[in-house]
């Protein structure tokens, strides 16, 4: 069993964790970044990033992540592309387990982000990978000249619907509310895209098909009337659930499963939170980076006050 003592362990390899890794490495903190099997988080699943300053010609999510990872490594943080399997925050030094390995640390930044929320239908589970998908970047290419129903009305539903039109002939957005909750830019892009139509105030009741998706049964929330849309694919983009299972008995969580925090400070000294877990409002790439930066600076202050 290997054991190390770090100044800081960052759990999560999305933009928040990676930014924290850059700052901590640059401040010469002995840092371990536990980035998960594939670093990058939600941004890795984005085809085109148009709103990150400094990339006027836009950049793909995976390319941006590769750059961030190189930058973290340049400043000397240890980098592990594995999942943390257990944590013990009961006493100092805190412990983070990666399988058989235990790593001890004086401070922790939790930046494990969030995963796609699903509709919870039996048909959704059964047809996942057979027409049902959650990541347009991953699977949009398999809808070349086909039709896709995109479920959801937020920023990512609209962005992903637009991404899918690069391949599909037709995209129908099904949204339960009367209006989209996204930036005007995206709403306008969707409105002027000839391949996209929208069905507002409709819910998906069932995904139809034996071996592959053949359609969805939707219900009009005003009239209660049900109808079937024939489709080859169904993208689910209805929001996120926080990845906090690892911390359930270790940190105070809200009813929604988010970590209770004041700015980047959790209820435990030396444990900080950053990224989507710390932001149910904006959830942007730059806001994730911003909180990663704040958490790393606070971790350094904490280490100076308590241990150095």
């Amino acid at each position, binding site marked *: 069993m290997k054991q190390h003592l770090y100044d800081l362990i960052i759990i999560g390899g999305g933009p928040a964790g990676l930014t924290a890794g850059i700052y901590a490495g640059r401040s010469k903190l002995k840092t371990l970044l536990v980035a998960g*099997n*594939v670093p*990058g988080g939600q941004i*890795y*699943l984005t*085809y085109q990033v148009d709103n990150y300053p400094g990339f006027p010609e836009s950049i*793909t*999510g*995976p390319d941006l992540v590769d750059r961030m990872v190189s930058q973290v490594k340049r400043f000397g943080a240890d980098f592990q592309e594995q999942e943390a399997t257990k944590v013990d925050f009961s006493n100092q030094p805190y412990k983070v387990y990666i399988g058989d390995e235990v790593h001890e640390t004086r401070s922790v930044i939790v930046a494990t982000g969030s995963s796609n929320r699903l509709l919870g239908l039996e048909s959704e589970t059964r047809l*996942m*990978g*057979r*027409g049902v*998908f959650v*990541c347009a*970047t*991953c*699977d949009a*290419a*398999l*809808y*070349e*000249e*086909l039709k896709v129903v995109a479920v959801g009305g937020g920023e990512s539903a609209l962005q992903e619907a637009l991404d899918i039109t690069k*391949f599909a002939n037709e995209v129908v957005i099904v949204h339960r509310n009367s209006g989209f909750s996204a930036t005007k830019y995206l709403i306008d892009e969707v409105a002027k895209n000839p391949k996209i139509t929208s069905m507002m105030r409709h819910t998906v009741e069932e995904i139809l098909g034996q*071996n*592959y*998706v053949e359609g969805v049964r939707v219900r009009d929330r005003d009239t209660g009337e049900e109808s079937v849309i024939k489709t080859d*694919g169904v993208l689910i983009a209805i929001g996120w659930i926080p990845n906090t299972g690892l911390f359930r008995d270790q940190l105070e969580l809200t009813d929604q499963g988010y970590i209770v925090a004041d700015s980047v400070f959790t209820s435990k000294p030396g444990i900080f939170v950053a990224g989507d877990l710390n932001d149910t409002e904006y959830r942007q790439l730059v806001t994730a980076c911003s909180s990663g930066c704040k958490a790393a600076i606070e971790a350094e202050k904490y280490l100076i006050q308590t241990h150095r």
Partner: protein
Amino acid sequence: MSSIVEIQAADWEKEVTQEKRPVVVEYWHHKCVICKEMKPIFEAQPAKYGETVKFTKMNLLESKENRVFAIRNGVRSTPTFIVYCMGRPTGQIIGHREPEDFTKELKMIIENTDSCLMSTPIEE
């Protein structure tokens, strides 16, 4: 380590249909996260079979022909691994698996592809 052959839809006849041994095709692309996760696991497979099984992969972002071909073959998600016997699919694995599970599942599909295995000279 035996290599994995990069194939295109246009080479299908030559690379897959005309093969007398089982052919594993990974439908993948470089922006697919799970493909990246599965890469080392898939790359570890050819060494287990020597020349008795052919391993290939088709990049779906390489051409529209590849995409349309994959869709016609029932691929709806990446990565999808399909085992073919003279061009006929005999089993598939869709998405992520743990290394041991993938190896076991693939072995089972390949073993069930017996018409291909029987026609493959054992000495090879």
